[in-house]
Protein backbone atom coordinates (compact mmCIF):
# COMPACT_ATOMS: atom_id res chain seq x y z
CA UNK A 1 0.00 0.00 0.00
CA UNK A 2 1.74 3.07 -1.20
CA UNK A 3 0.91 6.52 -0.05
CA UNK A 4 -0.54 7.17 -3.47
CA UNK A 5 -3.11 4.41 -3.10
CA UNK A 6 -4.08 5.41 0.41
CA UNK A 7 -4.57 9.02 -0.56
CA UNK A 8 -6.52 7.94 -3.63
CA UNK A 9 -8.74 5.77 -1.45
CA UNK A 10 -9.33 8.64 0.97
CA UNK A 11 -10.18 11.00 -1.85
CA UNK A 12 -12.63 8.55 -3.38
CA UNK A 13 -14.20 7.89 -0.01
CA UNK A 14 -14.71 11.62 0.41
CA UNK A 15 -16.28 11.96 -3.03
CA UNK A 16 -18.51 8.95 -2.45
CA UNK A 17 -19.66 10.28 0.92
CA UNK A 18 -20.41 13.64 -0.63
CA UNK A 19 -22.42 11.97 -3.36
CA UNK A 20 -24.19 9.80 -0.81
CA UNK A 21 -25.10 12.89 1.16
CA UNK A 22 -26.58 14.39 -1.98
CA UNK A 23 -28.63 11.23 -2.50
CA UNK A 24 -29.85 11.33 1.10
CA UNK A 25 -30.71 15.01 0.88
CA UNK A 26 -32.26 14.91 -2.61
CA UNK A 27 -34.10 18.23 -2.77
CA UNK A 28 -36.88 18.08 -5.31
CA UNK A 29 -36.49 20.73 -8.00
CA UNK A 30 -39.18 23.39 -8.29
CA UNK A 31 -40.07 22.39 -11.76
CA UNK A 32 -42.00 19.19 -12.36
CA UNK A 33 -40.38 17.94 -15.55
CA UNK A 34 -42.47 14.78 -16.13
CA UNK A 35 -45.65 16.86 -15.94
CA UNK A 36 -44.29 19.47 -18.30
CA UNK A 37 -43.27 16.82 -20.79
CA UNK A 38 -46.61 15.07 -20.70
CA UNK A 39 -48.51 18.32 -21.06
CA UNK A 40 -46.39 19.31 -24.06
CA UNK A 41 -46.69 15.91 -25.74
CA UNK A 42 -49.51 16.91 -28.14
CA UNK A 43 -47.21 19.55 -29.65
CA UNK A 44 -44.30 17.19 -30.19
CA UNK A 45 -45.42 15.28 -33.27
CA UNK A 46 -44.59 11.89 -31.74
CA UNK A 47 -46.24 9.67 -29.15
CA UNK A 48 -43.23 8.56 -27.17
CA UNK A 49 -41.98 11.00 -24.52
CA UNK A 50 -38.30 10.05 -24.69
CA UNK A 51 -38.21 10.62 -28.44
CA UNK A 52 -40.09 13.87 -28.00
CA UNK A 53 -37.50 15.06 -25.50
CA UNK A 54 -34.58 13.93 -27.65
CA UNK A 55 -35.67 15.35 -30.95
CA UNK A 56 -38.06 18.12 -30.12
CA UNK A 57 -37.94 19.60 -26.63
CA UNK A 58 -34.21 19.24 -26.16
CA UNK A 59 -33.11 18.93 -29.77
CA UNK A 60 -30.25 21.38 -29.21
CA UNK A 61 -28.59 18.86 -26.91
CA UNK A 62 -29.02 16.05 -29.39
CA UNK A 63 -27.67 18.20 -32.20
CA UNK A 64 -24.56 18.97 -30.22
CA UNK A 65 -24.15 15.33 -29.26
CA UNK A 66 -24.19 14.33 -32.89
CA UNK A 67 -21.56 16.97 -33.48
CA UNK A 68 -19.47 15.39 -30.71
CA UNK A 69 -19.76 11.98 -32.36
CA UNK A 70 -18.67 13.44 -35.67
CA UNK A 71 -15.73 15.09 -33.94
CA UNK A 72 -14.69 11.76 -32.41
CA UNK A 73 -14.63 10.13 -35.84
CA UNK A 74 -12.69 12.99 -37.35
CA UNK A 75 -10.03 12.71 -34.67
CA UNK A 76 -9.91 8.93 -35.02
CA UNK A 77 -9.55 9.30 -38.78
CA UNK A 78 -6.64 11.61 -38.28
CA UNK A 79 -4.98 9.18 -35.87
CA UNK A 80 -5.62 5.92 -37.63
CA UNK A 81 -2.89 3.51 -38.51
CA UNK A 82 -2.73 3.27 -42.25
CA UNK A 83 -3.46 -0.33 -42.97
CA UNK A 84 -5.23 -1.84 -45.91
CA UNK A 85 -7.81 -4.52 -45.30
CA UNK A 86 -6.17 -7.85 -45.72
CA UNK A 87 -8.58 -10.75 -45.65
CA UNK A 88 -6.65 -12.74 -43.08
CA UNK A 89 -6.72 -9.78 -40.75
CA UNK A 90 -10.35 -8.88 -40.99
CA UNK A 91 -12.02 -11.74 -39.33
CA UNK A 92 -12.77 -15.38 -39.18
CA UNK A 93 -13.06 -17.17 -42.48
CA UNK A 94 -15.55 -19.86 -41.68
CA UNK A 95 -18.24 -21.11 -44.03
CA UNK A 96 -20.65 -22.02 -41.24
CA UNK A 97 -20.27 -18.57 -39.77
CA UNK A 98 -20.88 -17.06 -43.17
CA UNK A 99 -24.04 -19.10 -43.55
CA UNK A 100 -25.32 -17.99 -40.14
CA UNK A 101 -24.45 -14.37 -40.87
CA UNK A 102 -26.33 -14.52 -44.16
CA UNK A 103 -29.51 -15.07 -42.17
CA UNK A 104 -28.61 -13.00 -39.14
CA UNK A 105 -27.62 -9.79 -40.88
CA UNK A 106 -30.86 -9.15 -42.80
CA UNK A 107 -32.68 -9.83 -39.54
CA UNK A 108 -30.51 -7.31 -37.73
CA UNK A 109 -31.23 -4.79 -40.45
CA UNK A 110 -34.97 -5.32 -40.13
CA UNK A 111 -34.76 -5.03 -36.35
CA UNK A 112 -32.72 -1.83 -36.64
CA UNK A 113 -35.31 -0.41 -39.01
CA UNK A 114 -38.06 -1.48 -36.67
CA UNK A 115 -36.42 0.24 -33.71
CA UNK A 116 -36.08 3.41 -35.74
CA UNK A 117 -39.69 3.32 -36.84
CA UNK A 118 -40.98 2.30 -33.42
CA UNK A 119 -39.23 5.26 -31.81
CA UNK A 120 -42.17 7.51 -32.52
CA UNK A 121 -44.59 5.59 -30.31
CA UNK A 122 -42.64 3.16 -28.11
CA UNK A 123 -39.08 2.67 -26.87
CA UNK A 124 -36.63 2.87 -29.72
CA UNK A 125 -35.26 5.56 -31.94
CA UNK A 126 -32.20 6.76 -33.79
CA UNK A 127 -29.64 6.02 -31.11
CA UNK A 128 -30.73 2.46 -30.53
CA UNK A 129 -31.24 1.74 -34.22
CA UNK A 130 -27.87 3.30 -35.02
CA UNK A 131 -26.06 1.14 -32.52
CA UNK A 132 -27.78 -2.01 -33.75
CA UNK A 133 -26.81 -1.01 -37.29
CA UNK A 134 -23.23 -0.53 -36.13
CA UNK A 135 -23.32 -3.95 -34.51
CA UNK A 136 -24.36 -5.38 -37.88
CA UNK A 137 -21.35 -3.75 -39.49
CA UNK A 138 -19.01 -5.03 -36.81
CA UNK A 139 -20.39 -8.55 -37.16
CA UNK A 140 -19.91 -8.34 -40.92
CA UNK A 141 -16.30 -7.42 -40.42
CA UNK A 142 -15.65 -10.06 -37.78
CA UNK A 143 -17.15 -12.71 -40.03
CA UNK A 144 -14.58 -11.83 -42.66
CA UNK A 145 -16.94 -10.27 -45.19
CA UNK A 146 -15.10 -7.63 -47.09
CA UNK A 147 -16.18 -4.13 -46.24
CA UNK A 148 -14.21 -2.40 -48.95
CA UNK A 149 -17.19 -0.23 -49.80
CA UNK A 150 -16.44 1.58 -46.56
CA UNK A 151 -13.15 2.70 -48.09
CA UNK A 152 -14.87 5.01 -50.49
CA UNK A 153 -13.76 8.15 -48.67
CA UNK A 154 -16.19 10.58 -50.24
CA UNK A 155 -19.20 8.34 -49.65
CA UNK A 156 -18.08 7.57 -46.12
CA UNK A 157 -17.65 11.20 -45.19
CA UNK A 158 -20.98 12.09 -46.73
CA UNK A 159 -22.60 9.34 -44.68
CA UNK A 160 -20.90 10.44 -41.48
CA UNK A 161 -21.95 14.05 -41.91
CA UNK A 162 -25.42 13.30 -43.28
CA UNK A 163 -27.15 13.17 -39.90
CA UNK A 164 -25.70 16.39 -38.59
CA UNK A 165 -26.27 18.23 -41.86
CA UNK A 166 -29.88 17.11 -42.13
CA UNK A 167 -30.50 18.07 -38.54
CA UNK A 168 -29.01 21.51 -39.08
CA UNK A 169 -30.75 21.87 -42.43
CA UNK A 170 -34.16 21.09 -41.00
CA UNK A 171 -33.47 23.39 -38.07
CA UNK A 172 -32.63 26.23 -40.40
CA UNK A 173 -35.45 25.45 -42.81
CA UNK A 174 -38.11 25.94 -40.17
CA UNK A 175 -36.66 29.40 -39.52
CA UNK A 176 -37.92 30.56 -42.91
CA UNK A 177 -41.46 31.30 -41.72
CA UNK A 178 -39.90 33.19 -38.85
CA UNK A 179 -39.94 30.70 -35.96
CA UNK A 180 -36.84 30.07 -33.85
CA UNK A 181 -34.17 27.50 -34.76
CA UNK A 182 -35.33 23.85 -34.48
CA UNK A 183 -38.95 24.69 -33.70
CA UNK A 184 -40.91 22.40 -35.95
CA UNK A 185 -44.37 23.41 -37.15
CA UNK A 186 -46.87 21.05 -35.59
CA UNK A 187 -48.36 19.57 -38.75
CA UNK A 188 -44.93 18.52 -40.11
CA UNK A 189 -43.27 17.68 -36.80
CA UNK A 190 -43.78 13.91 -37.03
CA UNK A 191 -42.44 13.69 -40.58
CA UNK A 192 -39.49 15.97 -39.92
CA UNK A 193 -38.54 14.00 -36.82
CA UNK A 194 -38.69 10.75 -38.78
CA UNK A 195 -36.48 12.19 -41.55
CA UNK A 196 -33.96 13.44 -39.01
CA UNK A 197 -34.01 10.12 -37.19
CA UNK A 198 -33.47 8.18 -40.39
CA UNK A 199 -30.37 10.14 -41.30
CA UNK A 200 -29.18 10.15 -37.70
CA UNK A 201 -29.46 6.36 -37.60
CA UNK A 202 -27.29 6.05 -40.70
CA UNK A 203 -24.74 8.49 -39.37
CA UNK A 204 -24.56 7.01 -35.89
CA UNK A 205 -24.22 3.54 -37.34
CA UNK A 206 -21.46 4.63 -39.71
CA UNK A 207 -19.71 6.53 -36.93
CA UNK A 208 -19.56 3.52 -34.65
CA UNK A 209 -18.56 1.17 -37.48
CA UNK A 210 -15.74 3.40 -38.58
CA UNK A 211 -14.55 3.87 -35.02
CA UNK A 212 -14.26 0.09 -34.89
CA UNK A 213 -12.71 -0.16 -38.32
CA UNK A 214 -10.08 2.44 -37.57
CA UNK A 215 -8.60 0.09 -35.01
CA UNK A 216 -6.86 -2.56 -37.09
CA UNK A 217 -6.63 -6.02 -35.58
CA UNK A 218 -2.88 -6.10 -35.50
CA UNK A 219 -0.13 -3.61 -35.23
CA UNK A 220 1.26 -3.11 -38.70
CA UNK A 221 4.84 -3.36 -37.68
CA UNK A 222 6.94 -3.09 -40.84
CA UNK A 223 9.19 -6.02 -39.88
CA UNK A 224 6.26 -8.23 -39.17
CA UNK A 225 4.51 -7.28 -42.37
CA UNK A 226 7.62 -8.27 -44.28
CA UNK A 227 7.78 -11.59 -42.44
CA UNK A 228 4.17 -12.23 -43.27
CA UNK A 229 4.75 -11.51 -46.92
CA UNK A 230 7.59 -14.01 -46.91
CA UNK A 231 5.49 -16.69 -45.24
CA UNK A 232 2.60 -16.70 -47.62
CA UNK A 233 3.44 -18.17 -51.00
Amino acid sequence: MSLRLVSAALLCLAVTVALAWAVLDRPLPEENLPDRVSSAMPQSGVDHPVTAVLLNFRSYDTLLEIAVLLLAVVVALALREAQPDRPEQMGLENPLLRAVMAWLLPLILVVAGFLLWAGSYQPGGAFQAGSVLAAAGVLLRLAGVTTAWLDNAALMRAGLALGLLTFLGVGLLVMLPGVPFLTYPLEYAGTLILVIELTLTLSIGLTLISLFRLTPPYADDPDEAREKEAETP
Partner: protein
Amino acid sequence: MILIDLLQGMLLLAGVGFFLVGTLGILRFPDVYTRVHALTKADNLGLGLIVFGLLLGAESVPVALKLLLIWGLALVASATAGYLVARAARRRGVKPWKARSGGGA
Protein backbone atom coordinates in the same frame (compact mmCIF):
# COMPACT_ATOMS: atom_id res chain seq x y z
CA MET B 1 -57.95 -21.12 -16.50
CA ILE B 2 -56.38 -22.49 -13.35
CA LEU B 3 -55.06 -25.41 -15.33
CA ILE B 4 -53.31 -23.05 -17.75
CA ASP B 5 -51.84 -21.08 -14.88
CA LEU B 6 -50.60 -24.25 -13.30
CA LEU B 7 -49.03 -25.42 -16.52
CA GLN B 8 -47.45 -22.03 -17.06
CA GLY B 9 -46.00 -22.03 -13.57
CA MET B 10 -44.60 -25.50 -14.01
CA LEU B 11 -43.00 -24.62 -17.32
CA LEU B 12 -41.44 -21.46 -15.91
CA LEU B 13 -40.06 -23.23 -12.87
CA ALA B 14 -38.74 -26.08 -15.00
CA GLY B 15 -37.07 -23.49 -17.22
CA VAL B 16 -35.38 -21.85 -14.27
CA GLY B 17 -34.35 -25.30 -13.08
CA PHE B 18 -32.60 -25.99 -16.36
CA PHE B 19 -30.90 -22.60 -16.23
CA LEU B 20 -29.60 -23.46 -12.77
CA VAL B 21 -28.47 -26.87 -13.98
CA GLY B 22 -26.71 -25.30 -16.95
CA THR B 23 -24.83 -22.92 -14.70
CA LEU B 24 -23.97 -25.74 -12.33
CA GLY B 25 -22.76 -27.70 -15.33
CA ILE B 26 -20.55 -24.81 -16.39
CA LEU B 27 -19.16 -24.86 -12.86
CA ARG B 28 -18.78 -28.60 -12.44
CA PHE B 29 -17.75 -29.88 -15.85
CA PRO B 30 -14.03 -30.46 -16.24
CA ASP B 31 -12.98 -28.83 -19.52
CA VAL B 32 -13.97 -26.36 -22.21
CA TYR B 33 -15.68 -28.89 -24.47
CA THR B 34 -17.90 -30.35 -21.77
CA ARG B 35 -18.78 -26.86 -20.59
CA VAL B 36 -19.92 -25.99 -24.09
CA HIS B 37 -22.27 -28.97 -23.81
CA ALA B 38 -23.78 -27.52 -20.66
CA LEU B 39 -24.12 -24.13 -22.32
CA THR B 40 -25.74 -25.27 -25.53
CA LYS B 41 -28.14 -27.80 -24.09
CA ALA B 42 -29.37 -27.04 -20.61
CA ASP B 43 -29.60 -23.29 -21.09
CA ASN B 44 -31.36 -23.46 -24.39
CA LEU B 45 -33.87 -25.88 -22.99
CA GLY B 46 -34.30 -23.56 -20.00
CA LEU B 47 -34.97 -20.59 -22.26
CA GLY B 48 -37.27 -22.72 -24.38
CA LEU B 49 -39.35 -23.78 -21.40
CA ILE B 50 -39.61 -20.20 -20.20
CA VAL B 51 -40.64 -19.10 -23.68
CA PHE B 52 -43.32 -21.78 -23.84
CA GLY B 53 -44.48 -20.86 -20.37
CA LEU B 54 -44.86 -17.23 -21.37
CA LEU B 55 -46.42 -18.29 -24.67
CA LEU B 56 -49.44 -19.58 -22.77
CA GLY B 57 -50.11 -16.09 -21.48
CA ALA B 58 -49.28 -14.26 -24.71
CA GLU B 59 -51.90 -11.69 -25.63
CA SER B 60 -51.68 -11.98 -29.41
CA VAL B 61 -50.26 -14.05 -32.23
CA PRO B 62 -47.42 -11.65 -33.14
CA VAL B 63 -46.28 -11.60 -29.51
CA ALA B 64 -46.21 -15.39 -29.42
CA LEU B 65 -44.29 -15.51 -32.68
CA LYS B 66 -41.87 -12.89 -31.40
CA LEU B 67 -41.15 -15.06 -28.35
CA LEU B 68 -40.47 -18.03 -30.62
CA LEU B 69 -38.26 -15.87 -32.85
CA ILE B 70 -36.23 -14.81 -29.83
CA TRP B 71 -35.80 -18.43 -28.78
CA GLY B 72 -34.72 -19.43 -32.26
CA LEU B 73 -32.18 -16.64 -32.37
CA ALA B 74 -30.81 -17.59 -28.98
CA LEU B 75 -30.53 -21.21 -30.16
CA VAL B 76 -28.61 -20.23 -33.27
CA ALA B 77 -26.43 -17.87 -31.26
CA SER B 78 -25.39 -20.39 -28.66
CA ALA B 79 -24.94 -23.23 -31.15
CA THR B 80 -22.71 -20.97 -33.25
CA ALA B 81 -20.84 -19.65 -30.25
CA GLY B 82 -20.31 -23.15 -28.89
CA TYR B 83 -19.07 -24.38 -32.23
CA LEU B 84 -16.70 -21.43 -32.62
CA VAL B 85 -15.22 -21.89 -29.17
CA ALA B 86 -14.89 -25.66 -29.53
CA ARG B 87 -13.29 -25.28 -32.94
CA ALA B 88 -10.86 -22.63 -31.75
CA ALA B 89 -9.94 -24.78 -28.74
CA ARG B 90 -9.38 -27.77 -30.99
CA ARG B 91 -7.25 -25.78 -33.41
CA ARG B 92 -5.13 -24.52 -30.57
CA GLY B 93 -4.66 -28.10 -29.43
CA VAL B 94 -6.64 -28.02 -26.19
CA LYS B 95 -6.85 -31.67 -25.16
CA PRO B 96 -10.27 -33.03 -24.21
CA TRP B 97 -10.52 -34.13 -20.63
CA LYS B 98 -10.38 -37.89 -20.15
CA ALA B 99 -12.06 -39.77 -17.36
CA ARG B 100 -9.53 -41.53 -15.15
CA SER B 101 -9.58 -45.29 -15.53
CA GLY B 102 -12.60 -46.75 -13.83
CA GLY B 103 -13.89 -43.31 -12.88
CA GLY B 104 -16.84 -41.60 -14.38
CA ALA B 105 -18.99 -44.68 -14.69
